């Protein structure tokens, strides 16, 4: 099992590096080419961080062919509009759906007319109307795949317990983590009395974030957890669960802090109330910032391999990239753990039976 895992790790690492190498095939041959390549790398990184309407693997710039597959676009614009993103031809064409015209510009869909008129404001921003967009984007697609995978893995693991008390295969690897979340995260933070109610959420959020983070390290160019909407959704659920399971004691500590003089209570109330919102906000920013920063650093380092022509420098950057990849594996787990840990901490505050005042 361990050997298999190591092999998988090595494979993933090497793929990360080589696929990036394929993604940037052209070498600068003329003066000013270096600037072009820097610009290209910058573009690649910003594109990678963004969501997209198709699953793009890489582009052959010489023949200008994109490799990947389109994903469905779902728009609500006075009626449902569903079509494949291939209609846009990577932003080159205007897509027509039930008499409405849409265009793709920098990964945003705008409503337009048959000629593709684009209106700009004074600052050069597009002011075309944006339809309500619930497309199955790349991040949504990956999330669905990962969710499906997690479900299959863990429901399979659950089935194994029916045949005996010990887990088999995948479960053997995951069970210590499940027990860790229970004994080191949920129990000490929430307390023996209430922790059971939160186990489902904590385990789900931990494995979901961890798996998504891990997929972000594959060469498929996935960056789900480094997306603010994703972390916002997760943090919002933590927030909602915290507020809806909170007891009287919790609210009392926010609006009428016991044990301090009355005037202080009035001052503390808005601060505490602000804290209620800051906590999940910190949660969402932390995960987003860590994951996207990790991706930026990794891609920048890989980009440097193409800027330097010195083999010694390339070797050094290759080593550094490899080293950072390993660090990122750790970060992927760590961020999932921190998110889970802090969620547990907030739940613990919400159900605390008596204050320490």
């Amino acid at each position, binding site marked *: 099992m361990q050997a298999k895992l190591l092999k998988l790790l090595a494979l993933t690492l090497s793929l990360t590096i080589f696929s990036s190498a394929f993604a940037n095939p052209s070498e600068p041959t003329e003066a000013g080419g270096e600037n072009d390549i820097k610009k290209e790398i910058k573009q690649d990184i910003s594109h990678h961080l963004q969501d997209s309407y198709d699953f793009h693997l890489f582009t052959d710039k010489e023949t200008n062919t994109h490799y990947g597959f389109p994903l469905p676009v779902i728009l609500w614009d006075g009626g449902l509009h569903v079509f494949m993103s291939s209609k846009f031809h990577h932003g080159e064409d205007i897509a027509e759906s039930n008499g409405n015209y849409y265009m793709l510009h920098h990964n945003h869909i705008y409503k337009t007319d048959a000629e593709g008129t684009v209106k700009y404001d004074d600052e050069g921003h597009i002011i075309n109307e944006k339809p309500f967009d*619930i497309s199955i984007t790349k991040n949504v697609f990956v*999330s669905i795949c990962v969710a499906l995978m997690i479900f299959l893995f*863990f429901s399979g693991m659950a089935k194994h317990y029916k045949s005996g008390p010990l887990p088999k295969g995948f479960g053997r690897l995951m069970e210590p983590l499940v027990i860790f979340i229970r004994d080191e995260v949920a129990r000490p933070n929430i307390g023996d009395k209430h922790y*059971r109610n939160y*186990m489902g959420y904590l385990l*789900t959020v931990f494995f*979901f974030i961890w798996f998504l983070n891990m997929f972000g390290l594959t060469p498929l160019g996935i960056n789900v957890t480094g997306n603010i909407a*994703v972390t916002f*959704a997760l943090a919002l659920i933590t927030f909602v669960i915290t507020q809806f399971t909170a007891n009287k004691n919790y609210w009392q500590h926010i609006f009428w802090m016991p044990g301090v003089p009355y005037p202080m209570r009035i001052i503390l109330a808005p601060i505490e109330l602000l804290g209620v919102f800051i906590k999940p906000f910190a949660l969402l920013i932390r995960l987003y910032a860590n994951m996207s920063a990790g991706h930026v650093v990794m891609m920048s380092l890989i980009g440097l391999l193409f800027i330097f022509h010195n083999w010694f420098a390339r070797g050094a950057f290759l080593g550094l990239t490899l080293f950072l990849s390993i660090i990122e594996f750790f970060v992927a787990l760590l961020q999932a753990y921190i998110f889970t840990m802090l969620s547990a901490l907030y739940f613990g505050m919400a159900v605390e039976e008596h204050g320490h005042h």
Partner: protein
Amino acid sequence: MEKLISEFSLGLFFWQTLIFLGLLFLLRKFAWRPIMAAVQEREDNIENSLKSAEQAKKEMEELQAKNQDLLKEAREERDKMLKEAKDAKDRIVSEAKTKAKEEADKLLAQARQDIHNEKQAAVGEMKQMVASFSVEIAEKIMKEELAVDKHQKLVNTYLEDLKLN
């Protein structure tokens, strides 16, 4: 911050929430509940097994201690019995000895008495016989030589003096 807000995609947020809640619901039902139950059950089992092993060990120790006590008791009992038997033997032997000695003494005394009596009787008879012999002898002498009456008295006196002891 502005960039963050412009990057924020409502559609992605919508799907993410939906996917996550769906996953949460499904996992709770089909994975976490059975897994947690199985783990809990296994842990309880282990704990119970350990406890019962501890109990068994304790019982074993108690049993052993009991056995030891029993053995000790039995040994004491045996020693006591042996001692008693020895005492009884000694007593019986000494009693027998005493009895035998008494019997012997009694027999001896009896024998002495008998001997004494026999001797007395024999002596008496002998005296009688000696007297009658003497008388007969004296008579024969008297008859032949002297007047019997004159010497009879003298002879008796001598016989009286001749006490056989």
